[in-house]
C-alpha cells in the first residue's frame, strides 16, 4: 500500500465514507504499522482542530450559515432527547453516588459548563414576597440596567449575548465574541470595542465577581469567598434539583450576599442560579434569577454583532 493509498483510507474513515472492507483494512494497518498509525493520528488531530476552528469562527459564509440555521431545530430536538435519557438514567446514579463536598460539585459544574451553549431567562425579584420596585441608585452612581425578561446566551469561556429591553421599550442587544465586545441599541449606530469586557456591566453579577458567562472563574469566586452548603434534592419529589447555597463570608467584599445554584446531579448542568441581596449602590433589583430555558447549540456566528443587526447599520469601532 502506497502512502497515498493509506492517507486516502484515513480520510475516508474521517468522512464516514469507508465500506466494511476499507474499515477492516484501516484497523489492520493501524495495529501493525506504527508509522502509518502516526500518520493517521496526525490527520485525526487536524480533523478535530478543523471542526473546532470552523464551528466557532465568527464570520460565516452565507451558504453554510443558512444550512446551519436549518439544522438547528433538528439538533435541538436531538440534544433534548439525549438530555431526557440522561436525566432518567441519572435517578439511579443519584441513589448510589458517594457523598461529594459542595466544592467538588462546583468543580464538576464548571467542567460541564464549558462544553455546551446555554440560554437563560433573567427575572428580577422573582419571589412574590419581594417588592417589584427597583431601588434608586445612590448619588453619582449610574443606575443598574433593567434586565427583567432578558435572555442571556452564553458559550464558555467568554462569549455571551444579552437581549433586553431598553428604556424606550426597544430591543437592546449586547455581547462579546471573545475578542471584541459590542452593543446594538434599538436605534443609532452599533458600537464595537476591542475590550471583550466592555458592555458586560448589564449582566447581573459581572461587576461583582460572579461572571455568569465564565462559569469556571465565577464558580472559583464562589469557592474562594463564600461558605458553601450542598442541599440534595428530595428523592420523593419528582423533578426536584440538588442545590448549592453559597453565603458570602463576612470578610469578603462586594457581590451578592447569597447565591443559590440549582443543578441536575445526573448531568451536572446548572438549571437556575439566583443572586440574592445584590449590592444596591447602583440601585436595581435585590434579587435576579437566571433560569435555563434551552441548551441547544447556537449558530457559530451567533456571538458576533453582525448576527444581530442589518448589514446596512452603521458600526463604530470605539477604541
Amino acid at each position, binding site marked *: 500500500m502506497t502512502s497515498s493509498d493509506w492517507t486516502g483510507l484515513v480520510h475516508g*474513515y474521517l468522512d464516514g*465514507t469507508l465500506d466494511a472492507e476499507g474499515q477492516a483494512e484501516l484497523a*489492520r494497518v493501524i*495495529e501493525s504499522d506504527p508509522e502509518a498509525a*502516526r500518520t493517521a493520528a496526525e490527520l485525526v*488531530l487536524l480533523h478535530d482542530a*478543523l471542526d473546532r476552528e470552523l464551528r466557532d469562527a465568527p464570520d460565516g459564509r452565507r451558504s453554510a450559515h443558512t444550512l446551519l440555521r436549518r439544522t438547528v431545530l433538528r439538533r435541538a430536538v436531538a440534544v433534548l432527547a439525549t438530555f431526557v435519557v440522561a436525566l432518567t438514567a441519572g435517578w439511579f446514579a443519584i441513589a448510589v453516588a458517594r457523598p461529594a463536598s459542595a466544592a467538588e460539585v462546583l468543580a*464538576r459544574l464548571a*467542567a460541564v459548563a464549558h462544553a455546551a451553549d446555554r440560554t437563560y431567562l433573567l427575572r428580577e425579584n422573582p419571589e412574590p414576597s419581594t417588592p417589584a420596585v427597583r431601588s434608586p441608585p445612590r448619588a453619582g452612581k449610574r443606575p443598574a440596567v433593567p434586565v427583567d425578561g432578558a435572555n442571556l446566551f452564553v458559550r464558555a469561556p467568554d462569549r455571551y449575548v444579552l437581549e433586553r429591553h431598553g428604556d424606550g421599550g426597544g430591543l437592546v442587544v449586547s455581547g462579546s465574541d471573545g475578542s471584541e465586545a459590542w452593543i446594538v441599541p434599538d436605534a443609532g449606530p452599533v458600537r464595537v470595542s476591542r475590550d471583550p469586557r466592555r458592555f458586560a456591566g448589564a449582566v447581573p453579577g459581572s461587576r461583582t465577581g460572579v461572571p455568569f458567562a465564565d462559569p469556571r472563574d465565577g464558580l472559583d469566586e464562589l469557592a474562594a469567598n463564600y461558605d458553601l452548603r450542598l442541599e440534595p434534592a428530595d428523592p420523593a419529589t419528582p423533578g426536584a434539583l440538588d442545590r448549592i447555597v453559597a453565603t458570602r463570608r463576612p470578610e469578603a467584599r462586594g457581590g451578592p450576599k447569597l447565591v443559590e445554584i440549582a443543578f441536575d446531579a445526573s448531568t451536572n448542568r446548572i438549571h437556575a442560579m439566583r443572586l440574592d441581596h445584590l449590592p444596591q449602590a447602583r440601585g436595581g433589583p435585590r434579587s435576579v434569577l437566571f433560569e435555563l430555558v434551552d441548551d441547544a447549540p447556537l449558530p457559530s456566528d451567533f456571538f458576533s454583532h453582525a448576527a444581530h443587526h442589518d448589514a446596512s447599520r452603521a458600526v463604530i469601532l470605539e477604541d
Partner: protein
Amino acid sequence: MDARTRQAFALWTRAQPAVSAFVFALVGDRAERDEVLQMTALAILESIEGYDESRPFLPWALGIARREVSNARRARARQPVLSDAAEAALASAVVAVEESERDRLVHLSTCLAELEGRSREICDLRYRSGLKPGRNAELLGLRANTVAKSLERIREELRQCLERRERAGGLG
C-alpha cells in the same frame, strides 16, 4: 477548589485537544464527541486521586476517554468500527504526535485563510455545518466522490501549509 482539583483542571486543559480528536475519530459525530468529552472530564475529575503523577497524563486520560466511548456505544447499542487493538494503537500514536502537532496547529487559522473559492466552500460545509460528503455534494451539485476527493486534497494542502509555516519559524 483544592490544589488537586486545580491540578486536574490544568492537566485536562492541556490534554483536551488530543483527547477530543481521539474521541471524535472513534465516534465520528460532533455532538456525541462533545457529550463523551463532558463525561470524560467528569470521570477524570472524580478519579484524579488515582492518577500516578510520575506517569504522563495524556495516556491516562485517553484510557478514560476510551472507557467513556465504550459506555456511549453501549447506550446506543452501536458496534465499534475499529478493533480494540487498533483503538489502542491509535491512542499510542496520538500520544506520540500530540506535542509536534500542537506546535503545527497554531498556524491553522492562517492556513485556512489561504483556502479560496470552491475549496473553502467545501471545507465550510464539512466543518462549519458538519455535513458529510454525500449531503455536501447534493448542495453543491457535485458527485459525492468528487467532494470526498476534494476534502482529501484540502486536508493534505493544509498539512503541507502547517508544516511549511512551522519550518518558517512559527511566525504565522
